[in-house]
């Protein structure tokens, strides 16, 4: 298991795919967090929506986001990695199927697809935790929908902070920028919602 992880890290570094995986994690993770935020605000605006309905709808969207992330990234990454390998084989005038580059072309699309799919799914599940734990929140006078909304804002802020760290910009500014996007989304839903 350890050697397999070491091999994957080596292949990710070799093909510089760790940058792609990181980008996919942030982009699709942000996508997942913002989608959940939108759903929660939508349900809040709708009023009198039963909690199981909210959970089922949000869970359905989380699964769909995950599946969409896995399939889309896998299809595009397989094509990209095959093209890269073919071009390298042409330059090397050799079959690289058994080399690290060949292994990378076979394995990395799966890894990148998992990152792309798991990021929105996992982040969505974290945001939905207050909904799952609604009976536990009652004694603390916490409302599940509002708690999930607050958690979504925290995760969106943290994703911004992470982006700030990658780009070496001030973490607070980077976090506030993504928070501003969340605030704009929420305002738009409140403004445009007919109910």
């Amino acid at each position, binding site marked *: 298991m350890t050697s397999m992880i070491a091999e994957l890290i080596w292949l990710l*570094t*070799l*093909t*510089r795919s760790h940058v792609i995986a990181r980008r996919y994690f942030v982009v699709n993770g942000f996508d997942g967090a913002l989608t959940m935020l939108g759903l929660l605000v939508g349900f809040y605006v709708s009023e009198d929506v039963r909690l199981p309905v909210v959970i089922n709808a949000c869970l359905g969207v989380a699964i769909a986001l995950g599946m969409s992330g896995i399939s889309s990234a896998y299809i595009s990454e397989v094509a990209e990695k095959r093209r890269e390998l073919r*071009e*390298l084989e042409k*330059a*090397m005038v*050799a079959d*690289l199927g*058994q*080399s*690290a*580059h060949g292994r990378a072309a076979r394995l990395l699309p799966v890894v990148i697809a998992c990152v792309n799919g798991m990021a929105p799914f996992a982040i969505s599940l974290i945001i939905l935790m207050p909904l799952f734990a609604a009976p536990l929140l009652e004694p603390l006078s916490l409302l599940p929908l509002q708690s999930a909304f607050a958690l979504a804002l925290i995760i969106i802020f943290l994703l911004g902070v992470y982006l700030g760290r990658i780009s070496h910009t001030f973490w607070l500014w980077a976090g506030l920028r993504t928070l501003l996007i969340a605030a704009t989304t929420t305002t738009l839903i409140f403004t445009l919602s007919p109910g």
Partner: protein
Amino acid sequence: MVQVKRIVLDVLKPHDPNGFDFTTAIAEKTPGCSVKLTVTAMDARTETVILVVEGKNLHLHVISEAIGSLGGSIHSIDEVDVENGPDDTEPA
């Protein structure tokens, strides 16, 4: 006993892995050796390097397999130092 002490190889390799990772990976496969890499030509996707491997008892197939697994291919064997030292076992 015949032992290969030094091999100089002309190798074509992709840019990645870079020289540091390439030599490190080869050294990992042949314990007790020292590996030196010199880039002699550079192309858009590939580079030609001179690889000098020194050790007590080198095996060309091990080095060749390591180079192949890293996407490289040996163009030519430019130099080989071989020693036939005294036998390890004394006659009875």
